[in-house]
């Protein structure tokens, strides 16, 4: 396999993908802070108790994606990095699913 020169987007003056400007980072941080405030507010609102868990999960996923895509630059960097990270997330979700199946199908664990 022929070797290639590594691409350093953040240094080189080429037309490739670039990282965001500080102003965009601040905007993302404000959005993250607002979502966190909504999360905590929703926690105390008794009228949405039935929807609480789905709402919290959706907001958590949005925050997760904002940090991964913008602060960790997955939106701008090579897709190879994204795949490495996704493999880990998928494996973690598999473990989580196994736990859920265990909870639903096996006898309850003794309190301890």
């Amino acid at each position, binding site marked *: 396999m022929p070797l290639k020169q590594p*691409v350093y987007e953040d240094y*080189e*003056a080429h037309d490739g993908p670039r990282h965001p400007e*500080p102003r965009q980072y601040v905007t993302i941080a404000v959005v993250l802070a607002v979502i966190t405030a909504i999360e*905590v507010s929703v926690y105390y609102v008794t009228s949405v108790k039935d929807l609480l868990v789905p709402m919290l999960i959706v907001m958590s996923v949005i925050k997760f994606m904002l*940090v991964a895509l913008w602060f960790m630059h997955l939106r701008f960097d*090579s897709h190879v990095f994204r795949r490495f990270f996704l493999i880990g997330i998928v494996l973690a979700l598999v473990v989580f699913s196994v736990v859920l199946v265990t909870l639903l199908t096996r006898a309850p664990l003794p309190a301890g």
Partner: protein
Amino acid sequence: MSASEQVITVGHEPPTATGLDNTKLAMWAFLGSECLFFGSLISTYLLYRNRVCAGCGPHPHQIYNIPYTSVSSFVLLMSSLTMVLALAAVQKGDQRAMRIWLLATAFLGMTFIGGQIFEFTDFYHRGLSLSASTFGSAFFVLTGFHGAHVTVGILMLLSLVAMSSLGRLGPQAARKVELIGLYWHFVDIVWIVIFTVVYLIPSK
């Protein structure tokens, strides 16, 4: 060293099979494995969080202080902002601004850890310990490992500041800051999940 000088030095990096920086690839592989690690700990917590026998200490809903943890979460989120601002500064060749932002990130990280130590101490005095119940074990192992990761991140940030101050960061300063930044942001997103799953989603 100016940004243009850095370009010349970086251009002499050895070629790779993928055309990607191997150190960055290794960091992403490591973070992928960390997803599995924390996924396992979070799953274990979910499995055990309702397992508290009579007289074995408090239940989750009796002990969590949501406003307090919300402030800690906000502090850690903002540390991700200061981390990317440090990266933006070093990419422009401004190492002084980079050091200021890195110190701010380390300070916010230490604030988070200080809050966690206070929380652990408070929980211990209220009857929740590592051995009090399986809930206590799962909680302290999960949040304790996260805190250990934050602590390692703080040490790496302070090392970067020290190396930069001594002029030993070298021509790949931005690359090093970016790699440690990836680790720091990962610690942040793990806390995003922990905050929701452990603290906000109500237990039975």
